[in-house]
């Protein structure tokens, strides 16, 4: 039992100090294990050790049929569970050329934007928690619980909703779904000023995040960062704009791009994205087209042999699905290109030279979900 945790010790000269920001650590929000080589408080070297939550979803999908493996993806990035399922359903619909009714497209987009809102709220709460301010965590959960109530009413479960089905959505929306969503959006817009008062305008928070963890545009591109992390460094990579899927071509919203590229820029980008998501929801909520919510896909899905690629914008970046099928009812090979996996690569260049306090601030601004990295 001696080499249990990442026993490969980096060769350290005498005055360097190696500590494990271990698998069980409050600030990693999951089981990310970083081995830091410290010189006093300054970080000299950082080595990630992954795999503590690697469940082999890609190998499992090869022995499950097309209707079953979709719901494993909501256990990958559980904060944008619906968006992952939506991506899989889109890929399968592209493979078998199924026609999805308009009503299903709009409902899926609405649910995707609500998931993004809930995920950004939880990120905002845990950023405050990592910086030591405990109270914002509870204010973030106040709105998030309302959104989860809506999910529970329509899809039956709060977090891993399994609401998407190839060909549309599992069942129609709850009768007072529209009323509740409007009520939440109005209430959240009133409370949004609290978010600014609690953290954004807080001088200690600003001094901890402005200028900390700078990621230049070229470095972000070469590290293949996507999502708010990349948009804070000036790359325009929003899949909803580049390749609009479902009902995104019908709504107008702007992609928030800033060029500072430090922790505070990533914070501001996500706050603005919350406002944009609310715009999208408001544009769609009033004109949900009537009609079927799902086209019946009978029997076993057997897409023709070949390769299919679908990419989608989750709350943390671009999720790409590479589906290789050999004509049977089980996928031959599935590859999930997850946003957190490449965003994790950006952690090292940003935190070298910084202090442990900065490492915590950078990890909070990267908003990593570890099961999304390990799959």
């Amino acid at each position, binding site marked *: *039992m001696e*080499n249990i945790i990442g*026993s*490969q010790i980096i060769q350290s000269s005498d005055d360097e100090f190696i500590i494990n920001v271990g698998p069980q650590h409050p600030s990693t929000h999951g089981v990310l294990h970083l081995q830091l080589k410290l010189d006093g408080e300054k970080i000299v070297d950082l*080595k990630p050790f*992954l*795999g503590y939550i*690697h469940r*082999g979803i*890609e*190998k*499992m999908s090869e*022995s499950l049929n097309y209707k079953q493996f979709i719901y494993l993806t909501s256990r990958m990035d559980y904060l944008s569970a619906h968006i992952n399922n939506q991506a899989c359903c889109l890929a399968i619909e592209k493979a078998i050329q199924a026609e999805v009714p308009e009503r299903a497209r709009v409902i899926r987009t609405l649910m995707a934007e609500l998931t993004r809102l809930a995920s950004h709220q939880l990120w905002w709460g845990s950023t405050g928690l990592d910086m030591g301010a405990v109270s914002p965590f509870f204010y973030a959960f106040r709105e998030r619980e309302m959104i989860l109530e809506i999910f529970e009413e329509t899809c039956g479960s709060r977090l891993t909703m399994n609401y998407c089905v190839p060909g549309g959505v599992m069942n129609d929306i709850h009768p007072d779904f529209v009323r509740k969503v409007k009520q939440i959006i109005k209430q959240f817009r009133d409370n949004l000023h609290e978010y600014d008062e609690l953290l954004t305008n807080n001088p200690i928070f600003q001094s901890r995040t402005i200028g900390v963890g700078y990621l230049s545009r*070229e*470095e972000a*591109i*070469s*590290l*293949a960062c996507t999502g708010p992390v990349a948009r804070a460094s000036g*790359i325009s*990579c929003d899949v909803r704009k*580049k*390749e609009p899927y479902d009902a995104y071509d019908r709504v107008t919203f702007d992609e928030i791009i800033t060029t500072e590229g430090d922790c505070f820029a990533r914070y501001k980008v996500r706050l603005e994205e919350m406002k944009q998501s609310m715009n999208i929801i408001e544009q769609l909520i009033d004109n949900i087209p009537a009609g079927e919510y799902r086209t019946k896909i009978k029997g076993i899905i057997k897409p023709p042999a*070949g*390769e*299919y*690629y679908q990419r989608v914008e989750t709350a943390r970046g*671009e999720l*790409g699905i*590479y*589906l*290789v099928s050999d004509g049977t009812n089980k996928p*031959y*090979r599935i*590859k999930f*290109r997850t946003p957190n*996996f*490449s965003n*994790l*690569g950006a952690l090292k*260049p940003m935190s070298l030279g910084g202090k442990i306090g900065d490492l915590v601030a950078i990890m909070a601004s990267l908003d990593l979900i570890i099961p999304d990295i*390990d799959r």
Partner: protein
Amino acid sequence: MQQQPEAIITQIFPDLPLGRWAQLVAITVKQDDLYTVCTQLRQHPSLDFDMLVCLTAVDRTTHLEVIYHLRSTSRNHDLIVKTELNEAQPELPSMVPLWKSAELFEMEIYDMFGIVFKGHPDLRRLFMPEDWEGYPLRKSYNANEVADNYLKSHQLLINQ
């Protein structure tokens, strides 16, 4: 919308077979001149593929197929570079000098398929424990009741 870089590719690489991989333009490159093609794709002004979006491998039982998905943020087009490797001794040059994101991708492919990337700064098993034998994503790998004898062999069971 994404433009398709077919015209420029055929003009720069006339001899490479051009194909389609999931509606994306794909070129198939042999194993040994992969690195030269990639550096050209990276540095050529009119191509400028500056982002390696994803690195995938598919075990086609007869051979291993490795797929590089490249994207140019300035030109806004995508390209797939495909290579075939025989299963005996899968070797590939590491793309870390061209794209930094290759580091994590290649560690994962090494861990899952056993493809060794020469010149990689820190090639180790990323997801599986250090002392794990076998490469899980190979078709020949049998995934059942592997977990129980791992626990038994590492004295982790409660009654041991």
